[in-house]
Structure formats: C-alpha cells, structure tokens
C-alpha cells in the first residue's frame, strides 16, 4: 500500500527564533488510523498546520498521496479534510451553511454541497439543528459540526487536532465509532489527542513527538509491547479472605472482592486465573488499572528530555 503522507527533514522556525520542528521524518500509510502524540508545544499542531497549508515550513519536504505539497498544493489541499483544535467556523452562520460553504470552497455546486451536508449532519446527529445559528450549539455539537465540514468534499485523508477535547464520554464514544467507520471506508485518519486511551482505542500506528523531534514511530501494538509491567484489577464473585501464591510480580487484596496483580512481560493472566480457580476464587470481571499508553508516553518523553539535557550539558 502506498503512503498517504511522507515527511522528510521537516523544519519550522517561527519568527522570534522558536524552533518548533527540528527535521522530523514521518511516513503514514494510506488507509491508516495514525496517532500523533506529544506534550504541549512538542510540534504536533505545527506539523499538522504545515500539512494543511496553514503554516509555512522553513525546510524539508512533504508529499501527500505521492504529490509534492509545494508543487501541487491546491491538489493536495483537495485531498485533505481538517478538524482543527479550536472552533474556526463563522458562529453567526446557520449550521448547514457552515458545511455547505465549505463544500463550495472545494468546488462543489451549492445543490451537491447541500445534499452532502444534510447526509453528514444526519450521521453526526446535527440535522435537527441545521437551521439554527452555529453559535447556539454546545461544545460537543460544534466539534461534530467541524467534522461534518471537514468531510463535506469527501477527502481521502482526515486530519483531527484534538477532536474530542471538551466532549463528554458518551459523545466521545459516538465520535470514535463514526471515525472508525469512515476509516474502514478507506479514509486515512491522522489524529492528535491528549486522551491517550483514545489513541490506543482507535489508532494502528503512532508517532510520539517531543521538542520538535520524533522520539518514537511504530505500530501501536509494538509500542504497547514495550511495557515491562502492567497492573490488573480483578473483581471476585465471592468474598476473599486471603490470596494464594500466584505466578506474578506482586499481588494485593484491596478489599474482600478486589484483587490487584502486577504482571511483567512473559507472565500471563491465564496462570493467575488457574491458581485462583484452584482456591475457589471466581473472577467475574477485570480491568487494566494503568493507562498503558500514558505510562509509555511519559517514559519516552522523559527519556528524550534527559537525552537532550545530557547533549546540551557542556
């Protein structure tokens, strides 16, 4: 499969001298659901801004679907839909007009844009609000409106910068389902998010950016495989008085029905269940206690910061 995005030696220095990007390299496969993670100020939005032509790059090259961004900018733009971090639509326009206008700016006739806008507004649960002013929508609805607007021209690639910020859990899950559906239909999705569980739930591949450099660029599965230890919480059906010896690093009885076990790489939960069953303890449900990706993310970023500090030390 060909690449949707290829970034080589991308650099950005803002007026005033801030180096936001220090020669990043990135490849995103067509059809991928890709996460770009990083702490605030790491360079995520700058990278996305350059991809969307909202930020001028200082050096390097960007190719989108095998077309050079500098040479074929208008064509590249026509292949991309953008959902930015901040609300950037005219709040004094009716909801449907926000989507229809955007379709027009991508060359659609008003009739075609309206038809498509209505389809998308229905899918995103905004159809009943279509004639109201955009400013009257709730925060979650405004986010969904921006997704509808980004999709109106049927882009091959959708870029979402913190799309679920400020959205409640139920709506967030709904948006996850929607994004998963359009990804399955072939749309390449690039996502930046602060909700790391969101990246873990949705994305197949991931890049972690810190201080303008890519510190990790791999598959989600491979990244999570780097975890050395995980903690699981097990809920017993019956009351438990004491815990037997188990093939784990450590185990704790939190209360009469809640057990915590720490597993290192190579240790399996099935061994834990076997021992517990042997002692008459039946586990009804369980969950992963730690946010695994968050743990990894912090570790990678801290390692990178430490390496940078060591390099800069005289």
């Amino acid at each position, binding site marked *: 499969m*060909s690449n949707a995005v290829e970034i080589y030696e991308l650099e950005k220095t*803002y007026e005033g001298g801030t180096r936001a990007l220090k020669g990043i390299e990135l490849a995103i496969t067509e059809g991928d659901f890709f996460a770009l993670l990083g702490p605030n100020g790491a360079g995520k939005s*700058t990278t996305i*801004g350059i991809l*969307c*032509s*909202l*930020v*001028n790059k200082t050096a390097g090259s960007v190719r989108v*679907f*095998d*077309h050079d961004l500098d*040479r*074929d*900018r*208008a*064509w590249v*733009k*026509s292949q*991309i839909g*953008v959902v*930015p971090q*901040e*609300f*950037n*639509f*005219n*709040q004094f326009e009716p909801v449907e*007009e926000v989507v*229809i*206008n*955007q*379709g*027009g*700016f*991508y*060359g*659609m*006739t*008003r009739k*075609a*844009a309206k038809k*498509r806008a209505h*389809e998308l507004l229905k*899918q995103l649960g905004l159809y009943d609000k279509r004639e109201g002013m955009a400013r009257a929508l709730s925060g979650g609805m405004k986010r969904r409106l921006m997704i509808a*607007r980004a*999709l109106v*021209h*049927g*882009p*091959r690639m959708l870029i979402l910068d913190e799309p679920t910020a400020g959205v409640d859990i139920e709506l967030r899950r709904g948006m996850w389902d929607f994004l998963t*559906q*359009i990804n399955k*239909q*072939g*749309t390449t999705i690039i996502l930046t998010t602060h909700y790391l569980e969101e990246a873990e739930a949705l994305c197949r591949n991931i890049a972690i950016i810190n201080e303008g450099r890519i510190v990790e660029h791999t598959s989600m599965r491979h990244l999570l495989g780097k975890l050395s230890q995980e903690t699981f919480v097990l809920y017993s059906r019956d009351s438990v008085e004491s815990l037997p010896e188990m093939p784990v690093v450590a185990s704790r009885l939190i209360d009469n029905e809640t057990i915590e076990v720490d597993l290192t790489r190579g240790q399996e939960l099935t061994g834990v269940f076997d021992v517990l069953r042997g002692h008459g303890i039946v586990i009804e449900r369980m969950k992963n206690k730690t946010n695994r990706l968050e743990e990894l993310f912090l570790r990678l970023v801290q390692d990178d910061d430490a390496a940078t500090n060591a390099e800069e030390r005289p």
Partner: protein
Amino acid sequence: MSIRSQSDAFDHQGPGEKAIGLTPRGAWNAFVMLLTREVLRFGRIWVQTVLPPMIMTALYFVVFGHLIGPRIGEIDGVPYIQYLVPGLILMSVITQSYANSVSSFFGAKFARHVEELLVSPMPSWLIILGYVAGGVARGLAVGGAVTLVALLFAELSVHSVLNLFGVALMTSILFALGGLINAVYATHFDHISIVPTFVLTPLTYLGGVFYSINMLSEFWQQASLYNPILYIINGFRYAMLGISDVPIWSTYAILAVGIVIAYLYVLRLFRNGIGLRG
C-alpha cells in the same frame, strides 16, 4: 452512504503528474459560494451596511443642497444640489467597497474562519476575486440605494452610461482591494478604522465631492491634483453631468494603475501568507 466520494470539481491526476486542484468549473462554484456568502453577510446586517449611508446622503442633500446650495448657485452651469449627486454616490461606493472587504476579511481572520479558505484548494487569486466581488457588490448596492435617495432631492442625469458603470465598477474594485490589504495587515479592530478615518475620508472630502477645484486658489488647485480621489470623483461627475475638472482618461489611468498595483500587492501577501499563515 460512503463518506468518500469523487468530485468533478477536482483534477484527478495520477502520482507524479502535475495536478491543479480545482477544475475551472470547480473554481467557478467556489467563487459563486464565496460571493454569495459575502452578499448574504452584508445583506443580513443591512441596518448597519445599507441604511446609514442612505441617511447620511439624505442629510447631505438637506444641509448642503437645500440650506446652503441656493447661496452657492451653480457650478459649471449645474445647480449645486445636482452638482453634489455624483460625488455623494461615489463617496458611498468608495467607503462601502472598502468597508466590506476590510471588515469581512478581518472578521474572518479574527474568528479564524479564514482558515476555511486557506485549507481549501481555492488559489489565492480566486479568494481575492471573491472578496473583491463582495466589496463591489456592496459598493454598487449602496451606490444604487444612495442614487434612489438622491432622486428625492435632485434631478438626475446621465451623460455617458458606459463611463458611469465603468468608473463606478473600477472604483469599487480598487477600494475593495485596498480594504483587503488593510485587513491582511490588521491585527486589532482599531487597525481597520485607521485608514478609512485618517486617509480615505479626508482625501474624499478634499477630492471635489462638494466643490470644483477651480474655486480654489492656484496653490490648492495644484495640491489637489496630487489627490487620486479627485480624478475618480471627477470622472464619475463627467459620466453623470458631462463636466469635470480633469480629463476622463486620467480617471481611467488612475483607476487602472491603482487596480493593477493593489491586486499584485495583495496577491503577493496571500501567496506568501503574510498576516495569514504562521
């Protein structure tokens, strides 16, 4: 429904081939959409955009035409109230074309919905054309409304229809481009009123709206010739009344040169992303 769809608005070139983005038909659709949005925008707020210049013009006719005009008599063989008409109409065209571009584009920058255009495949020239067309639409619409008001006070005549529309159209294009340049550089709301207040209004008032430069002393006559708005207003006055302080060709020369310079300048600003992209 599939989210992905192929549109005939886009150019479908293969990898490695030069690709243009919007097709001519797509570009036309984009232009129409932007112009429609602009017209709806100033139409929605007609109380702020269309009504004030109509009231202002009525007041000018009452004060300068009816109260002061009879004491002045005629200028170049035309009653003073009739002499005022072309200048007042064109003054509205100038201020409204400029105001539409500067307020609409700066508003879009301020609220960040200018990004809707910047991420779209619309080339810079097409975005400029859309905003300029919006400014022209407002300038000519208000010019038309002011003409209706003028009909209540004075007898209207047209010496040359072609020049009438030619000068009005080119004037609105030039000042819509000017408003766009102002909006690109503006970073605060204060910045969009500086040029209209301290440059446009004085130049317009001193550009022969209310008088002929032949009424001035030699020094001020010569000084007035450095005011480009003088040529524009007199060109329009020639189109309506057949009288002018300057030859009509100088009006077109000023307008044409001004449009070319302003367009190339704003195009450079857009292409380099000055005031628009990080």
